[in-house]
């Protein structure tokens, strides 16, 4: 137990598709579990990230809460990994960047068809949206990138096993996809 690698995972402005893909490791998860222990992750329900060896983050940065979470991961994780298209270049959520935030919020909460009781939600519990959705590397230092929408289970497997074996992770051609 003591020499297990601690891994934390989270999704920021993402769809949890990368997490689903991670679960596609299927029976390999059991092998992984022998070497790896999960800290903060949807799998564990731990709320805040403790000291970890590896942090896996899917999704880009779209609001203030994302920034706080990302920073918590950066502070606690020795190795921080941007997982999937959204974490790497903003991905689909970043397509809102073509529309000014003011228009997005107005359409959703003020003038959109079917909006009742138009008002911009305002509560200190609610995170505020950033004017643009940004990739992780524009906010904190990122150590590794796993491309794909989502990266396949094989990508996670290769990356983690390389690291566990003390090798520099290397993804060969078949594992590099942006879609």
């Amino acid at each position, binding site marked *: 137990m003591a020499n297990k690698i601690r891994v934390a995972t989270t999704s920021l402005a993402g769809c949890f598709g990368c997490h689903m893909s991670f679960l596609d490791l299927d029976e390999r998860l059991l092998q992984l579990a022998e070497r790896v222990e999960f800290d903060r992750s949807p799998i564990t329900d731990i709320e805040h990230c403790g000291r970890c060896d590896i942090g896996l983050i899917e999704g880009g940065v779209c609001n*203030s809460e994302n*920034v706080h979470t*990302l*920073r918590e991961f*950066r*502070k*606690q*994780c*020795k190795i*921080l990994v941007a997982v999937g298209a959204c974490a790497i270049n903003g991905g689909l959520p970043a397509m809102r960047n073509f529309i*000014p*935030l*003011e228009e997005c*919020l107005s359409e959703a909460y003020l003038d959109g068809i079917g909006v009742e009781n138009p008002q*911009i*939600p*305002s509560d*200190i519990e*609610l995170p*505020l*949206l*950033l*004017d*643009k959705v*940004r990739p992780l590397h*524009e*906010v*904190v*230092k990122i150590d590794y990138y796993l491309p794909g929408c989502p990266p396949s289970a094989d990508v996670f497997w290769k990356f983690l096993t390389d690291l566990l074996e003390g090798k520099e992770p290397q993804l060969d051609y078949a594992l590099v996809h942006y879609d």
Partner: protein
Amino acid sequence: MTAFLQELAKTYGYQANHLLAILRAVQARYHHIPEPAIEALAGLLQLPRSQIIGIVEFYSFLHLQPQGQYELLISDSITDQMLGKQDLISYLADRLQVSIGAVRADGLVSLANTSCTGLCDQGPAGLVNGLPLTQLTRAKLDVIVSLINARTPLPEWPSELFAVHDNIQKTDVLLSRTMTMGEALQATFDRGIAATLTEIDRAGLRGRGGAGFKTAMKWRFCSEESETTRYVVCNADEGEPGTFKDRVLLNSYADQVFEGMTVCAAIIGARQGFLYLRGEYLFLHEPLQAVLQQRRDAGLLGNNILGQGFDFDIAICLGAGAYICGEESALIESLEGKMGIPRNRPPYPVTQGYLGKPTVVNNVETFLAAAAVAVQGGDWFASIGTGPSKGTKILSICGDCACPGIYEYPFGTTIQAILDDCGAHDVLGVQVGGPSGTFISRQEFDRKLAFEDLATGGSFIIFNASRNILDIVNNFTHFFAHESCGFCTPCRVGTSLLKKQLDKIVDGHGSAGDVAALESLCQLVKNYSHCGLGQTAANPILTTLARYPELYQAKLKKISYEPGFDLDAALATARRMADRHDAAAHLAQVGEDYE
């Protein structure tokens, strides 16, 4: 408009080659290129309309959107900034009630920044409808504002506003001797054309634009081409910030420059020459035309020059605000009425230049020197200077010195000697060769003006100890991003990335890895860019990083990474719309590192 355009197209023989000149005329009259003009010219010149739009969008002085009837541009060169340009343009914007980069609501006036106007020895400078405004002060701006608001036509403005001085401070063999008209040509024919080329070879004359290619070799290559239609082009697109010597040469020594071009034409067998004059020097256009006419009247241009059966004439083509056109193949493209995009080489212009024909392109000063060599012979010239750098170099000196202006020095002169002459004190460093050249520190003032040591096209900008090197580098780096033609990826994207990365560091958002990232980006832009612009665009950073690494390091924070954008400002819109004022509605710029 239709009649005007038809007349214009007719004047230029309906030739697409003259598109830039035609568009300049349309811009001057309508203060933009109106949509109907694009449509009409496409028909008259038999061009795709996209080609016309391409040119308008390429050159800074042409616009698709209407500019003011008074188009005011203020030079954003580093020396203008040092002379208080920023305060002046803000004052002007305030007095005129127009924002920088905009047109006033009544359409009367527009105000914007422009790249170096070649008036660095008499800045802060600007342009109004293409004409130079010099030594601007708040008092002068008050006058200008009144004249504009009173809609006073430019010819009625006080002439002192437009006064441009030569400021020749030190002459040597080239500038101290005034040649009589026709002297060099007569000498050429008396000696023989081949023998004159030998003299130029013996003189060791090298191109004065900065690159230093041997002039005689270039002329010989061109003359040996099998294609017999050949051209001479004088590159007067003096755009390197801090350079203005060609302006002075064309103002006071134009006849000798044209004579040098004519000698070249006789040697290479050209019948047509062009002076490509940067758009900023519009005020020289008419006087230069007059000089050409004098030469025609004297039988030194036109048919059967000096009775030698030699036909040659020179036309003047104006640029329209594009630094890249100083690159010879981009200049040729521009002469052909196209966007100034540097060509792939080979073939070189001496083989396939203007209209695909063999073409010699030389700097203004090179032709001036060639004419002198034609008169006085190669040995005379070669006796001056150093082994690989013969003759003298004409410098444009500006920045922190008592006497900015034009200085002529034999090659081999030390930087210290030059600084002493121009009254420079407490000097921090000198930018030799403009932004694309080298920044030298005060430890290097024993270095010499020479191709083998410090090469320069003429720009020599002095900075005293009160100046901030990173401000200087920032100005130059922004300049290159603005002037990149955008043809190749490393320069188009790379110069903008350099700007972003340098801004990040200068603005205090840099962290440990940011200087290393900046340097590796510099190397990529330098090593992979298509032409000299991209290959030298990183020089301001590279040359100062090598000399003052501590200046860059001092800007860095002791953290692994900080965003290059303002995080809290990125929440501003949402904060305002949600009417949030609590602490959670804000973000600190930096988080904590893994420890």
